[in-house]
């Protein structure tokens, strides 16, 4: 239920709806899309990335001297959780072909394909299998499959969305593998939304020139993820899943090849060593670092752990100065602040509206442009609506969708979204949602090629943890495709490599060297990474947490 003072504005949204509906039905753009110059202008002035304090120089490691997102530079300039000399690497606790770090979409896809290519794997994961951003994607997955579309049109859309900074070979892999991924998932039992004749039901997303968004109601990620997890669980002899056991450092060999990892049991606080012929990092992104203090759409464990361990092992990062803010994060009620409101809402005809009931931006600009326009509308033009707790937002007119698409459409296609709001007495088929950009995606990551290889031999990266495929801005639906395409590729190529990969003497020398580098750069800090979990304890409680010395498992 919206507070009374918002009712005047809500009334205006109601009043203008008929006119906006006619505009939508006319087939013309409901608002003029921006030119290249207009895009640049709004990004420069309003996107959080373009503020000077949002980036700082990193002083050590492979990207030394580069400007990175401040919070990322912080976790890179931090101490290891372990002291390398305490580990005996001559008798590893586990041995396997491939160590997969992370059990989200990319990790599970990699394990399934690696197995088909003859490789056994261990999946090490911080929370449970499937506790990942992959589980939460609502809107869908892009893939060019219709007669009006082609993988090369998808290629151009992705490049334009990424401001032409994307690595071409990666975008080709992404878009050309797309149709096969749709089929692969279908054969694994994913129930795609379809038209009555069996053809794929597809919608637009921001920045797409063809309808190619495939969905499973608004539980797309949940359906795909549970299918992949179920398949992983069908092969217990070949895929071992270690939950609540994140990999907190990589193990190298004396020839500089990646050869395993140190795992940390978060419950017993023991450490375990895994010797592997290859390692795939599939740890996802960093939303829980709350970059620039933003709320996030991300899951509890999204703390960028893979970046840290790969960086210490010498892997080069790419585009780690670029953060994606999803235009439509929820801002009211307070309990669901930051939650994702799928872009599929705009794909189905939902429009962003200011407090006067007016359109102010084309609903389907690429995400960074759309987000920057929302921020401009609220903070500069003051045409947003402020919540009782002081957050700004603009309306996202969802009732329009029910009119455009017909009665019952919301209930059938957006059950998750409907549930989210009806708990708070907001019926989104009758009232709009209040939205503002929310920290959503790590555009950059560890640089890979189209085999998911990094500059470190034996180290593969897939999914959100990797960098290059999306340039500096990802389009909607390309991340679900990304973790499938590159998860599969990582599984395949790592399995191929593992067949003949030699392993020398295991070593944690790189950890010691990194600590020395910190010292040499005169970085004095008590930061420890990987971060593992964010802390949401209240300040009152923190004031009383006064243990001076930790002992055993008490912390």
């Amino acid at each position: 239920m919206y507070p009374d003072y918002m009712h005047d504005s809500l009334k205006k949204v109601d009043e203008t709806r008929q006119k906006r509906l006619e505009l939508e039905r006319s087939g013309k753009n409901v608002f003029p899309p921006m030119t290249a110059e207009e895009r640049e202008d709004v990004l420069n002035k309003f996107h959080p990335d373009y503020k000077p304090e949002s980036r700082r120089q990193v002083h050590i490691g492979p990207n030394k001297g580069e400007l990175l997102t401040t919070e990322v530079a912080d976790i890179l300039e931090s101490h290891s959780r372990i002291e390398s000399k305490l580990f005996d690497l001559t008798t590893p606790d586990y041995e396997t072909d491939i160590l997969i770090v992370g059990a989200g979409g990319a990790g599970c896809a990699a394990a399934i394909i690696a197995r088909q290519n003859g490789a056994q794997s261990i999946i090490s994961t911080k929370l449970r299998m499937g506790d990942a951003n992959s589980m939460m994607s609502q809107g869908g997955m892009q893939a060019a499959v219709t007669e009006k579309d082609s993988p090369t049109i998808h290629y151009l859309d992705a490049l334009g969305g990424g401001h032409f900074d994307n690595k071409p070979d990666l975008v080709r892999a992404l878009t050309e593998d797309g149709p096969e991924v749709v089929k692969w998932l279908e054969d694994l039992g994913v129930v795609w939304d379809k038209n009555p004749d069996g053809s794929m039901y597809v919608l637009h997303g921001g920045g797409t020139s063809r309808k190619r968004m495939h969905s499973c109601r608004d539980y797309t990620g949940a359906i795909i993820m549970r299918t992949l997890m179920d398949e992983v669980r069908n092969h217990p002899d070949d895929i071992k899943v270690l939950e609540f056991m994140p990999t907190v450092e990589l193990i190298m060999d004396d020839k500089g090849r990646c050869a395993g990892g140190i795992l940390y049991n978060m419950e017993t606080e023991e450490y375990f060593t895994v010797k592997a012929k290859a390692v795939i990092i599939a740890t996802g992104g960093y939303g829980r670092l709350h970059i620039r203090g933003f709320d996030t759409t991300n899951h509890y464990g999204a703390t960028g752990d893979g970046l840290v361990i790969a960086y210490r092992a010498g892997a080069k990062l790419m585009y780690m100065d670029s953060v994606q803010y999803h235009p439509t994060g929820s801002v009211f009620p307070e309990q669901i602040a930051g939650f994702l409101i799928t872009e599929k809402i705009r794909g189905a005809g939902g429009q962003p509206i200011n407090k006067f009931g007016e359109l102010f931006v084309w609903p389907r600009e690429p995400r960074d442009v759309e987000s920057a326009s929302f921020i401009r509308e609220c903070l500069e033009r003051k045409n947003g609506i402020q919540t009782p707790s002081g957050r700004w937002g603009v309306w996202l007119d969802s009732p329009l969708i029910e009119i455009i698409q017909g009665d019952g459409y919301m209930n059938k296609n957006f059950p998750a979204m409907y549930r989210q709001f009806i708990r708070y007495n907001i019926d989104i088929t009758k009232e709009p949602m209040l939205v503002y950009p929310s920290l959503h995606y790590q555009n950059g990551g560890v640089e890979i090629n189209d085999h998911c290889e990094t500059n470190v031999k034996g180290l593969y990266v897939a999914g959100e943890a990797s960098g290059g495929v999306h340039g500096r801005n990802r389009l909607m639906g390309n991340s679900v495709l990304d973790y499938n395409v590159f998860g599969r590729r990582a599984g395949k190529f790592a399995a191929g490599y593992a067949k003949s990969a030699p392993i020398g003497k295991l070593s944690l020398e790189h950890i010691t060297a990194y600590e020395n580098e910190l010292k040499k750069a005169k970085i004095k800090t008590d930061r420890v990474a990987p971060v593992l979990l964010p802390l949401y304890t209240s300040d009152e409680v923190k004031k009383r947490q006064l243990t001076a010395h930790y002992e055993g498992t008490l912390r």
Partner: protein
Amino acid sequence: MAKITAKTKVKAAKPKTKPGKTAKTQTASAKSEPPKAMVTVYIMGKAHKVPADATIMGAIEYAGYQIKRGAGCREGFCGACATVYRLPGDYKIYTGMACMTLVQDGMWLSQLPAIPSQKPVYDLDKLEPNVAVFQKLYPEVFRCVACNTCTKACPQDLEVMDYIQAAKQGNIEKVMDLSFDCLSCGLCAIRCPAEIVHFNVGILARRLYGKYLRKNSDHLDKMLKNVKSKKYDAAYKEMMKMKKDELKKKYYARDSE
């Protein structure tokens, strides 16, 4: 599919003041509320004062617990935060997701860190989509006494018992449809007197439907053939060679469906 009824509706707290503050940036800490109304909840039996408008998850963290098991996506998709609670003066046991359920004064709550559940190993390629699958892999389904406790326990308001009945009849499409929005939180399974693991039955049915009972998409098959025959190879190569300016021109001139 069933109409979502949201039996867990709550009343939104009325704002105490009109907003007047101008936020420079919008951040997680940009809050300017007056002192909050508090309630007492009993987290695993221990009393804590927490904000009256907190979710159960928010309350647990506010009270000082670092959650390890019991939090995942935090937005109602992953099913990690199954919680049971009782309310004062009420004999009933209630269920909910900690991330989606608001606290109430006097609430006595406990999270379920993990739910033991059977999940037989199978080869999907060798299964047939009929009732025999359930007889073989989940025979306990046929012990269902239609008590409806599973449906009452479901935090998503799904018709859980109805899909178990549909499984007994071999109606895979119905199981798929009714279980589609399932979070695998396990609250149905832990309450079931017949010891059924409903959510895994749902996953099996959905996979069977997706693989065997779906209608095929001709245009998808056609596109796969095109990709396999390297139809787009030349166009890719041409674009991959283009300079940024050329690509930009091509991009802004492209037509839209």
